[in-house]
């Protein structure tokens, strides 16, 4: 399967996506909902997390991917941009660094970057969003678990379900089996194990046009099934709602689920989830160094509303902390039901 960009699909154009999201009349806009619940303009609480998208290159082509990542995507972060990120990390109170992609490990400078983050900031929480299969994709990646351990990296990995059929239908044929192998490798060196400080968290997102289950109950179910069927251990399960952009939006339209899904998100708007959205504590950095409120805004090319600080080279902490967060209709994905963030439910 090719990326939307390689197909020249209209939905690979971010302005087309925004126009489409804004065009149907669902009776209410996200801004109106925020206004009704006294949250507009949406403001940051503080900047605790820097989420860095290291590039769109990936060994997988997942059907729901909001990045439209895949092997045919060549956009990756350069060492020059990483050095600028390191300078910001060193001089600001960033508590958590969240590395994502694509498959961030495919960036040739990935290990250099992680090692340098750890050396300049021994206490910072480094998260790598690892798709698991990358560990088995090539012999040069087989020692990633040891590399993660050596740098005290927290691993967060997608596993849409504890069965092959549902996982493979979303992430590609054979992904489940390889993911289980990779999880065993991580468990073998202590990740996700009781009494270990090596954290392995899993991410569930629905394989279709419906909302995720309650996080606590599903985590218990995942733990039971993965332990009994595959002897796999992990720490926490994060439930994430699919946000209607990019490939998931393409799926919604193609399957005629778009309107129903948007109605569901809107009717499930939860003010508590809206108050706790992750963009209030996060800055997202694109592969080319531009700054965004979140990874979804990044994919829609909605840059932060701070003209004096739009790029990592122009980092202005005060301006960013006082910015108005850019919102649009896709934001209903983070405020529905129990809420959704890269760390799971928020309400």
């Amino acid at each position, binding site marked *: 399967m090719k990326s939307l960009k390689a197909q020249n699909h209209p939905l690979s154009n971010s302005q087309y996506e925004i126009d489409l999201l804004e065009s149907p009349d669902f009776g209410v806009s996200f801004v109106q909902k925020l206004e009704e619940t006294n949250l507009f303009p949406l403001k940051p609480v503080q900047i605790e997390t820097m989420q860095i998208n290291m590039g769109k290159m990936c060994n997988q082509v997942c059907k729901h991917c909001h990045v439209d990542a895949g092997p045919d995507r060549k956009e990756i972060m350069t060492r020059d941009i990483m050095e600028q990120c390191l300078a910001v990390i060193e001089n600001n109170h960033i508590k958590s660094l969240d590395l994502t992609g694509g498959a961030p490990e495919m960036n040739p400078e990935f290990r250099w970057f992680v090692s340098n983050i750890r050396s300049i900031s021994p206490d910072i929480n480094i998260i790598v969003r690892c798709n698991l299969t990358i560990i088995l994709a090539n012999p040069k990646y087989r020692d990633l678990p040891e590399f993660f351990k050596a740098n005290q990296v927290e691993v967060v990995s997608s596993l849409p*379900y504890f069965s092959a059929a549902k996982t493979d239908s979303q992430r590609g044929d054979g992904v489940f089996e390889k993911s289980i192998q990779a999880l065993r490798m991580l468990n073998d060196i202590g990740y996700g194990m009781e009494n270990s400080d090596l954290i392995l968290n899993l991410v569930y997102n629905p394989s279709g046009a*419906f909302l995720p289950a309650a996080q606590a109950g599903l985590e218990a179910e995942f733990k039971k099934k993965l332990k009994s069927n595959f002897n796999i251990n992990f720490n926490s399960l994060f439930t994430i709602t699919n946000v209607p952009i990019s490939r998931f939006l393409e799926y919604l339209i193609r399957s005629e689920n778009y309107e129903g899904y948007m109605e569901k998100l809107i009717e499930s708007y939860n003010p508590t989830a809206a108050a706790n959205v992750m963009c209030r504590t996060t800055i997202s950095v694109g592969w080319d160094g531009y700054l965004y409120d979140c990874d979804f805004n990044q994919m829609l090319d909605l840059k932060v509303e701070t003209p004096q600080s739009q790029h990592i080279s122009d980092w202005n902490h005060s301006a960013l902390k006082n910015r108005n967060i850019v919102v649009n209709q896709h934001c209903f994905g983070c405020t529905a039901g129990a809420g959704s963030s890269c760390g799971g439910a928020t309400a």
Partner: protein
Amino acid sequence: MKTYYNPEDLKKFGKIGEFQKPLADKFFDYYGEVFKEGALTAREKSLIALAVAHAIQCPYCIDAYTVDTMEKGCDEEQMMEAVHVAAAIRGGASLVHSTQMMNKVKELSM
């Protein structure tokens, strides 16, 4: 084409109070309480509801509890097993009445 069942009508369920509010309010309060986590989990209750929806053959309920069970993290295998429980009870309910038929046959036969 007009039909007795319109999927759009499911969205109007909450508006039945328009004709009789006090009873509707009591029903929806009760309904909400029934489906909360209790001795049974919300997930287990949703699967029971899916099975009952098939037993009573209510298209609205089948739609609603298909979505609900998916949103409770159930997979297709679990959902179909729930429907088989309904089918087994319905089939069993017919078959167990055959004992009455057998009794009658034996009563009338030499």
